[in-house]
């Protein structure tokens, strides 16, 4: 099916992009990678009167280390993350997760910022940003603000981004030497929407868990952390018995939401399976 007609304008910089967004309001849609938006327009599930192309906005580009943080620009593509040496070094969780996103052709255009701004419950980057304790950098007519990933995803497809704001970048603490990670995703076929997923990051001190972040995706309306299981694991050495207890806690605390592929019970079961795999991998 073909999209309904729309106008198209390419913003030259961030200030112009924000001004255009304010000017056109609800009639406009931002286009970056367009991998979600264009599919939506093709199906006429949205009929904006104008697209604002932000792919030339340099302020949204690039991967760099700034002080003790890794900065990932909103326009960085999934493929760029997949192949980035900086990311492999400072946020290897993302390197492991990237190949799970859709397929190569989609990854070549789809962006970090787009995935976060939509906040699809089955998306990989929202959960990864939670696991990595990322900070979102947002700009609007009123200026710049920063929001922790913990406060960014509020409801189904709903983030704290206001209609006139643009996600500029994320800042992620550099991986420390005592940090290990595991990324797990179950999907019926490679590249399908996740049935259940887990982005896990652990820091250890003298063999004991110092901090633990377990972010599940495709289990509920938003990426969800197993806070009780996390608290339980802190200060302890991971062994097989501990893993079983953590799995039990995670299954009890997370209120799963069924979707078209799996019931609540299946999701609950599977999240425990993934947690077991992740913790086993991070045990040594």
């Amino acid at each position: 099916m073909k999209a309904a007609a729309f106008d198209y304008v390419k913003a030259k910089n961030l200030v112009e992009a924000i001004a255009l967004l304010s000017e056109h309001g609800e009639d406009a849609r931002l286009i970056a990678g367009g991998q979600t938006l264009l599919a939506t327009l093709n199906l006429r599930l949205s009929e904006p009167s104008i697209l604002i192309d932000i792919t030339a906005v340099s302020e949204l580009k690039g991967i760099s280390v700034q002080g003790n943080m890794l900065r990932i620009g909103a326009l960085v593509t999934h493929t760029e993350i997949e192949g980035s040496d900086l990311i492999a070094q400072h946020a290897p969780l993302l390197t492991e997760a990237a190949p799970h996103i859709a397929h190569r052709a989609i990854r070549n255009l789809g962006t970090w910022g787009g995935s976060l701004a939509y906040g699809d419950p089955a998306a990989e980057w929202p959960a990864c940003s939670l696991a990595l304790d990322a900070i979102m950098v947002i700009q609007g007519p009123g200026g710049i603000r920063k929001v922790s990933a913990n406060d960014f995803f509020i409801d189904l497809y709903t983030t704290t981004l206001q209609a006139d704001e643009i996600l500029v970048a994320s800042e992620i603490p550099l991986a420390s030497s005592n940090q290990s990670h595991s990324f797990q995703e179950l999907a019926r076929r490679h590249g399908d929407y996740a049935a259940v997923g887990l982005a896990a990051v652990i820091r250890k001190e003298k063999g004991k868990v110092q901090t633990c972040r377990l972010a599940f995706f495709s289990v509920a309306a938003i990426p969800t952390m197993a806070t009780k299981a996390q608290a339980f694991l802190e200060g302890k050495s991971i062994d097989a018995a501990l893993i079983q207890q953590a799995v039990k806690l995670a299954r009890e605390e997370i209120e799963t939401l069924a979707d078209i592929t799996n019931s609540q019970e299946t999701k609950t079961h599977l999240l425990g399976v993934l947690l077991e795999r992740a913790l086993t991998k991070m045990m040594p």
Partner: protein
Amino acid sequence: MKHKKQITMMLNGKQISADIEPRRHLVDFLREDLGLKGPHLGCEQGACGACTVRVNGQIVRGCLYLAVQADGATIETVEGLTEQGVLSDLQEAFLRHNALQCGFCTSGMLLAAAELIEHQPKSNREQIRQWISGNYCRCTGYHSIVNAIMEVLEARADGRKVKPVTAA
């Protein structure tokens, strides 16, 4: 009536310009306006991969990319890449292994395979399958496609040329 845009792009090595509606997909522009029937339309949702073309050296879904976005870009279709000869060993291998029947997916399959060979030349069969999972084939059952790609990967690793199907 939404305003048409003037675009200029390098297409299969030639510079072309056109006035197009913003909503026109790249694949429709290539097929309908320029008569390049190599890329095909399947789902128009980005799932099937039949519309795969190369933009600035990377494969993209032609149905999830607007022609207006191609302004200033370098576009290559299976027609142009065939002329350049860069797909010849893959094409030979596809023929040898019967990796196509109706041919509808083949353009997309070749382009996806070419990117795999370039970026992940050490792939095993499982990794090939994962890579081409974004290209649907209704005829072959994929096995022969994986065989063909595997042959090219092995040949290149050995520094061999893939044998032509017909005598020169």
